[in-house]
């Protein structure tokens, strides 16, 4: 079924955080080979409360508080996945996945291929991304493009409760490694979530708003900023289509190209800094596939190319906001 629940299906209002917690619980009830591991995921139920109650329900044998050993958390998840478990590992801030980088990039991503398909690696690594407000340079980053560049990995980055639930379930059931990036400022976002079990396939974008003038591709919680910018722009007579790719790899270019058939104008929005990140990749793929569809140069609205500063006003300068999205849209429509 698709991401946006249609009228008929029965739904319940949840936050993103609740949706993750519920999905983990339901999947762990269904499949005894699923374990959760990471720093403070057990007794404390994760600092954001994401795994609350799971330790109590499933016990210390399936919800494992680890020492602060990210390389071993990531690497032992691989060993467990290769031998019969389905680990869901957590890195409390995705910034520190750098510590497990070798295991992730040189082992997890490659081992199935290197071994001629003899091993499969059904594991999920959950990690919050993005700026959380004054958390500075080492607690605010978004690395989705790094991992999109690594053959063998899947990168998922949803930002609505319904998408989070459907995609996390798909991630847990996938036989290949998944990086599941949650935005730390997105945990409290509320939305209707189908009560019935459902999954959302990877590689299927969500058209969050239909429009005919400009196509805005917005990653993670930028979806919500793009939507509010789109409302304001509508009042100015610019009709934007907002597409949330939801998965970074695989990436649904078909939906983007279909939209460009209508609009011919593209704006990409992401929080990661501009240089050498996913915006550039999306633009280059679109240009390669549909240069002739473009009636104006695409624009990328992204984080500025600095480490995240602590000071609030400086931080606010770095992160894309509605004003910058609006400005880019007006530019591509030549206003």
């Amino acid at each position, binding site marked *: 079924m698709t991401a946006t629940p249609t009228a008929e299906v029965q739904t319940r209002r949840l936050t993103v955080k609740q949706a993750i917690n519920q999905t983990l619980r339901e999947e762990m009830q269904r499949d005894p080979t699923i374990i959760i591991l990471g720093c403070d995921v057990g007794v404390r139920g994760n600092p954001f409360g994401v795994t609350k109650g799971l330790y109590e329900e499933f016990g210390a044998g399936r919800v494992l508080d680890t*020492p*602060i050993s990210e390389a071993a958390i990531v690497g032992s998840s691989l060993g467990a996945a290769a031998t019969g478990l389905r680990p869901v590992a957590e890195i409390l801030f995705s910034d520190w996945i750098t510590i497990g980088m070798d295991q992730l990039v040189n082992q997890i991503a490659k081992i199935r291929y290197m071994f001629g398909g003899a091993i499969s690696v059904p594991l999920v690594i959950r990690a919050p991304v993005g700026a959380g407000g004054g958390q*500075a340079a*080492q607690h605010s980053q978004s690395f989705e493009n790094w991992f999109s560049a690594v053959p063998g990995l899947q990168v998922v980055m949803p930002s609505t409760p319904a998408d989070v639930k459907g995609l996390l379930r798909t991630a847990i059931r996938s036989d290949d490694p998944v990086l599941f990036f949650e935005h730390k400022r997105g945990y409290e976002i509320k939305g209707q979530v189908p009560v019935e079990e459902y999954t959302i396939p990877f590689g299927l974008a969500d058209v969050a708003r239909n429009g005919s003038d400009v196509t805005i591709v917005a990653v993670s919680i930028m979806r919500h900023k793009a939507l509010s910018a789109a409302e304001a722009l509508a009042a100015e007579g610019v009709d934007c289509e907002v597409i949330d790719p939801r998965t970074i790899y695989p990436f649904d270019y078909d939906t983007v190209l279909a939209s460009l058939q209508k609009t011919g104008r593209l704006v990409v929005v992401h929080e990661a800094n501009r240089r050498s990140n996913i915006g550039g990749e999306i633009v280059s793929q679109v240009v390669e596939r549909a240069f002739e569809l473009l009636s104006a140069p695409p624009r990328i609205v992204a984080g500025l190319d*600095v480490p995240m500063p*602590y000071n609030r006003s400086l931080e606010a*300068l770095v992160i894309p906001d509605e004003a910058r999205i609006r400005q880019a849209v007006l530019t591509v429509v030549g206003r």
Partner: protein
Amino acid sequence: MRHRVTPEENCEAVAAFERDILTPLAMSARLEPADLREMYARMRLIREFDTAVKELWKQDFIYGLAHSYVSAEAIAVGACAALRDGDYITSTHRGHGHTIAKGGDPRRMMAELMGRAPGYNKGKGGSMHIAAVDMGMLGATGIVGSAMPIAVGSALTAKTLGRDNVTVCFHGDGATNQGVWHESINLAAAWGLPVIFLCENNQWAISMPYEQAVGNPSVADRAVGYGIPGVTVDGFNAIAVHDAVAEAAERARTGGGPTLIEARFYRYIGHFVADDEAYRDPACNERWQQFDPIERMAGFLLESGSADKAWLDEADETALARVEDAIAFAKAAPEPALDTLYDGLYSDEFMAQQGIGR
């Protein structure tokens, strides 16, 4: 595997601490009464500073993540009292105490915590990255264990340039399970570098009790594997910490290589300013508070005749006044100008050449 720490376990831990670790404060051949008074003043300054930080965070003058050094004062102050100008320290996510102990200016610190322009980091670092490089304090870090190799590198500089400086590498018990902790200590041991690895073992890493995170809860025991001296000291006792660090520093300055010191104590406050501590029994903290390092130091100053009550009262007032002054300074200080966003990204020469920020 992981289980909630029971009140019984905690009582046993307290008893074991009293039996095996706790050492009464005693005069040190290396310290004059004046030194002891100065140590007390710095411990008190740290206490007042971080007590104020918690309030200021609640009032949103300070934001993001802030970790208090309360309960650990004896360690940073004891260690830094054994250092000289030119010596370095590296820090953790809990860096306020280290900065004050190494001589950092509370005004510039508080300004940094409030993200103001005159702050040590010009408002770009905040609590988790507070640095006082001019004082040899090489900066706090938000990533557990990440300062370990930086400490080793600073010691490599001393050895390479023939300086007799040492570096004290503060780190938490949680950091001891990071790979880079191991690589750093082994490298320093293999090369005989002048670095003192000082583990602040407060027995918790957020919600994880140390004995459940390891196979052997003695950090000092690990020194055997590296072929370096390993000692455990009472982390609530500033004089004991000082003497252990002073001895290690003398060895390091004379080519004796690194030492691993475990300062065992207990974090009887929340992990960070807004920690609800739901992961442990609140009663635990009270049991450990009896070892308050500042009260113990005050008691020793009196009984050893190093200071009288009047001096203590004045010292306490001075500490409070310095913090109030720092707060006033910080609140009055300007926010960084928006056009300073790119400043410090690269060296000025490169920035100019590339026209960055223009």
